[in-house]
């Protein structure tokens, strides 16, 4: 038995460590732990602040899914105060969300995940002519021609086809060769390039993917221009409670949003569609098909037993979330839990998730294995009653500040363990696809929206390419990565759908983008609570605010990464990362490439997952920062 530690896991957001026990003879992982190794305390920082500013603070949870928490936050505050936002604001927020999803998935696949599958070293053996041919074949075979119905056509022809000439690939090969030969590998240094997994793909696929890695590094920035137009910048665009700050006017030359600026948004949306269809999906399917053919259908873990979603994209505005309004006009009704999908459709069980789930004890968090302490006798607490008193207990081996091995039977992570009705769940694009598919096959989705129908069609198409039923290929590591690509395509279409709605509405004469009726704190109730939910690129996200006397009394978030990366629970078992690692074979224990690959298939984003709030309102330790004379810290 070999004890393998990977720390830090790179190409993610934040700090993550995993430890696995590998049976060297069989390559079987017998135990695995996942540990969030940082804790920033943002929820405590939220206390006593102006709820209208909450989005700006809490958005800094994460600089990768940079608009997700801002959106969760304004929704929570609006729910608490009973604010309905104007139509345009709903469309614009949906465009910002879809933009984020497309760009985030592309960056994840190419820059944060691709180097687990493809290698610049292997690319050197590729033949440039064969690669150009392969590129053409892939474009023909693996393009999934799905489009949102009746959306406008605003480009004469599709831009940005991947170059498919031998010259192009020869040039990329030269670039890579120069880097490898210079001996200064830079970001490509020190990886396990000799791992047998890198031999699974032909050299031409490696060259093609490395070329696109470089292309996308340049192009990803152009995808987020809608955030720059509507929110002023990216990362961390600006929001406002009650709508959006970007007033619209077709009359005023200085207006934040006018025809010229909408055109920039449209261009980015078109580009998103083009990049997903011409680069991302063909590349993903080429790699995925090779893995599936090689029998690599492992790494599914909890996807087989329990997945959860909250539902996404209110088509029009809604009245509130805690009163159930949010769930009434969703474009994608993946608000639900599917259990036992891995046992086949017949055995799979669907349960709807409603407002009741997000506002009551159906969702709780425990700290059995997290470095926190609950009051005596407390085990599971709803976020409203949540207590976050840190209790660092050190590692099992090593010292407090020099860890050798963490204590799997004790506390070992800065993440709490969230549960739905006492069960651990996986969230994310894979969960959304499993839920919609199961619902449809069980006849629980009588009139699918166009987006839901597109999800079903996408699954059909991929199943044909792979020659396997969704129940087989979906709950795997490859399936998790593929679902993200399908989600990118879906969101690129959703982006266009809401852009067209925005244009039509402005055309009808409605330019309202913010509702300031409740802006004045004097109009607020003395005390109120709200929930804001959102399907982030990484899965179900919920923000909770408790407002008292016009100030934030309590702020809590249950974020996608907490669901997936959480430590085990004494009753419910392992978290999703841990389950997935246990469901993965390791060939060379000293070079656990399969482990980092399966963990990265979740698109880890750790900073958002570390909770810290003492809901009883006790401040844990106050260190004063003086705005004008630098930071003073008590060491």
């Amino acid at each position, binding site marked *: 038995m070999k004890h393998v530690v990977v720390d830090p896991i790179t190409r993610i957001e934040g700090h993550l460590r995993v430890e696995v026990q590998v049976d060297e003879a069989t390559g079987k992982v017998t135990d695995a732990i996942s540990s969030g190794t940082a804790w920033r305390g*943002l929820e405590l920082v939220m206390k006593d602040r102006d709820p*209208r500013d909450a989005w700006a603070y809490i958005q800094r949870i994460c600089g990768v899914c940079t608009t997700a928490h801002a959106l969760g936050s304004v929704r929570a505050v609006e729910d608490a105060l009973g604010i309905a936002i104007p139509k345009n604001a709903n469309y614009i927020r949906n465009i910002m969300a879809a933009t984020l999803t497309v760009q985030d998935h592309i960056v994840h696949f190419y820059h944060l995940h691709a180097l687990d599958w493809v290698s610049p070293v292997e690319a050197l053996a590729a033949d440039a002519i064969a690669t150009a041919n392969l590129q053409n074949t892939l474009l023909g075979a693996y393009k999934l021609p799905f489009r949102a119905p009746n959306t406008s056509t605003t480009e004469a022809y599709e831009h940005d086809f991947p170059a498919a000439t031998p010259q192009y690939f020869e040039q990329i090969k030269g670039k890579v060769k120069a880097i490898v030969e210079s001996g200064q590998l830079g970001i490509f240094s020190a990886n396990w390039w000799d791992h047998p997994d890198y031999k699974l793909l032909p050299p031409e696929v490696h060259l093609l993917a490395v070329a696109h890695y470089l292309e996308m590094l340049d192009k990803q920035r152009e995808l987020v221009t809608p955030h720059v137009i509507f929110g002023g910048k990216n990362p961390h665009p600006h929001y406002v409670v009650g709508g959006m*700050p970007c007033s619209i006017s077709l009359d005023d030359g200085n207006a934040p949003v006018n025809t010229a600026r909408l055109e920039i948004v449209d261009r980015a949306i078109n580009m998103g569609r083009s990049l997903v269809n011409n680069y991302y999906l063909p590349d993903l399917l080429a790699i995925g098909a090779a893995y599936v053919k090689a029998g690599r259908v492992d790494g599914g873990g909890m996807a087989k037993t329990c997945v959860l979603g909250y539902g996404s994209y209110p088509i029009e505005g809604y009245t509130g979330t805690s009163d159930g309004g949010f769930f009434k006009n969703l474009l994608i009704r993946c608000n639900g839990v599917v259990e036992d999908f891995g046992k086949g459709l017949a055995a799979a069980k669907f349960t709807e998730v409603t407002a009741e789930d997000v506002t009551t004890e159906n969702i709780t968090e425990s700290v059995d294995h997290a470095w926190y302490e609950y009051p005596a006798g407390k085990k599971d607490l709803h976020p409203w009653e949540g207590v976050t008193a840190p209790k660092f207990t050190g590692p099992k081996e090593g010292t407090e500040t020099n860890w050798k091995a963490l204590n799997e039977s004790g506390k070992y992570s800065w993440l709490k363990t969230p549960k739905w009705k006492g069960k651990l769940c996986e969230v994310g694009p894979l969960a959304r696809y499993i839920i919609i598919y199961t619902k449809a096959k069980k006849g629980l989705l009588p009139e699918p929206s166009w987006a839901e129908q597109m999800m079903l069609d996408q699954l059909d198409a991929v199943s044909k390419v792979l020659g396997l039923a969704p129940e087989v290929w979906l709950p795997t590591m490859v399936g998790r990565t593929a679902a993200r690509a399908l989600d990118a395509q879906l969101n690129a279409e959703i982006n266009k759908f809401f852009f067209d709605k925005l244009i039509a509405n402005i055309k009808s004469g409605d330019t309202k983008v913010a509702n300031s009726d409740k802006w004045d704190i004097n109009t607020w109730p003395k005390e109120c609570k709200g929930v804001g939910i959102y399907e982030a690129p990484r899965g179900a996200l919920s923000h909770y605010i408790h407002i008292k006397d016009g100030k934030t009394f309590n702020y809590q978030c249950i974020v996608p990464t907490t669901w997936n990366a959480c430590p085990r629970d004494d009753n419910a078992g392992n978290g999703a990362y841990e389950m997935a690692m246990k469901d993965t074979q390791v060939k060379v224990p000293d070079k656990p490439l399969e482990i980092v690959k399966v963990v990265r298939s979740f698109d880890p984003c750790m900073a958002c997952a570390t909770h810290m709030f003492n809901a009883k309102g006790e401040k844990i330790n106050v260190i004063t920062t003086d705005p004008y004379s630098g930071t003073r810290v008590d060491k």
Partner: protein
Amino acid sequence: MDKRESMWDVYLRKGMSRRSFVKSCVALTSLMGLSTDQVSKVVEAAEKKPLPVVVWIHGHECTGCDESFIRSGAPLASDLVLSQIALEYDHLLAAASGEPFEAHLEETINKYKGQYILCVEGAVCTKDNGVYCMSGGKPFIETLQHAAHNAAAVIAYGTCAASGGIQAAKPNPTGSSGISHFTGKTPVVNVPGCPPIPEVMTGVVMHVALFGTVPPLDNEGRPKQFYGNRIHDTCYRRPFFDAGMFAERFDDAGAKAGWCLYKLGCRGPETYNSCGNLRWFQGMSYPIQSGAPCIGCSNAHFWDEDPMTTRMPEYGPLGNVDKIGAALAVGTAAGVAVHGAMSVIQKQKREAEEHEKE
């Protein structure tokens, strides 16, 4: 294998023309805020200086700065990472992880002692021996001290690294702070912003890389070329401020017409950054242009200057701004004077409040 290439060597090796090399140098010169007579100096440096080795480490942060960095349009991040610097260690983009990755950091530090540029994103966690920010089984503070003491220069990217950022906001649960107290004698360039503008980030690292020295800094350690102006002095809504024309509410007629956002809480008058001159995405927009008041994200501890939508506390809820605006409209000289006074009043008011609280 050990010969370190210069930017020009890389261009030669790639078969790129002298012309495109000189063009890049011209672009870099203006990006770094230098005048055109400095181009020859930049060319010389780019010809001779080996590609700078860069080590990029992460403390308490959100990765927004990394994300901002890869949005750089001129130079493109891909060019910068692959042709203009040797990025040897970076959590976001590195292929490797775990032990080999940590070993590579050690190797890099030893091999390039006193020569590499250390980029730091994120704050230092100081409380309880730093156990709230661990990486590689060690507290971040240890890695920072070790890497900083052996570096040629340190760049503190983002408000977190420069002054603690969001996690250092009250009550600062983890004892987070800016990094400069922990970097020893190595010179530090503060590049605040939440996050900083991409081209500011690439511009600063290229300056250090090409000239082998830190750029001219102001008294807060920020490069003057990027933080020398207030947003307010470069704001395209400034004429409306001077004319006393203000948006009163989000989305009112003034907001649509692009009037000044001062009454909605704009912190432009006390914020030093390049949003007004460079803007984001190469001139596309910045928060104020998109209708959102500046939140002052490049100011140390701006997080504790809440609430964001209230200004000028002693004038009541934004009361007399009209008068100030009207006064300003009378003459520029008076405008500057009143203006300066306003910033001072705001600052004093806050300081007084701080003392009360302590």
